[in-house]
């Protein structure tokens, strides 16, 4: 189960809506070993694409160094799908390299850049195996 604050959930959704129709992506870091998402880190989608996302390689190094210095982990790794459902694609599964992370997917297929229905789901992706989990907003 992913437990996340309303504020962080809203910030992820706001980012996804703002970047629509391109995919938005980012991380919510948290203290190592706690499973608590706390620090919102929106990332630039270096691919700037409606069908693909990738963290810029320089940004990625800075992010991991920063988390290392602060003794944090990427508790949540999020991205949006802008034309399809909020479910990990084959590509998402093959590049999922953080077995400890909650992979959050947001679909902006219905809402676009505006207010409106949005789906927010969370998954574990471990060795190619996808398991959806409950999201508890606190």
């Amino acid at each position, binding site marked *: 189960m992913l437990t996340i604050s309303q504020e962080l959930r809203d910030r992820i959704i706001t980012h996804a809506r703002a970047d629509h129709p391109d995919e938005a992506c980012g991380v919510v870091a948290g203290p190592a070993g706690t499973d608590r998402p706390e620090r919102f880190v929106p990332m630039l989608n270096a691919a700037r694409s409606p069908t693909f996302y990738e963290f810029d390689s320089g940004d990625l190094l800075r992010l991991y160094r920063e988390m290392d210095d602060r003794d944090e982990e990427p508790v949540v790794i999020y991205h949006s799908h802008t034309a399809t459902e909020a479910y990990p*694609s084959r*590509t998402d599964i093959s*590049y999922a390299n*953080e*077995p400890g992370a909650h992979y959050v997917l947001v679909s902006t297929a219905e809402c676009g850049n505006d207010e409106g229905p949005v789906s927010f789901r969370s998954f574990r992706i471990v060795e190619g195996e996808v398991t959806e989990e409950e999201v508890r907003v606190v």
Partner: protein
Amino acid sequence: MAIEVRIPTILRDYTDGEKAVQGSGATIAELFADLDTSHPGIKARLVEDGGTLRRFVNVYLNDEDVRFLSGVDTELTDGDSVTILPAVAGGMR
């Protein structure tokens, strides 16, 4: 020639859980070959059969992505630090 190599979580199975290991080599390719002798199997996760860097593996020499240097032929100097990070990527298909 000692090079510190920082290992991402996903590859720590090869390093007995160690976050950083020491290796040696005059280039990235030589360093990976050396790592593979002490941590068998790790090289195949980093480079293709032909020896080029895998597309979704980022390797940094100090602060620089080696793709912007000379890739696996990038030369190393004693005391350099190499960081391996899998790309964070995906898409709708």
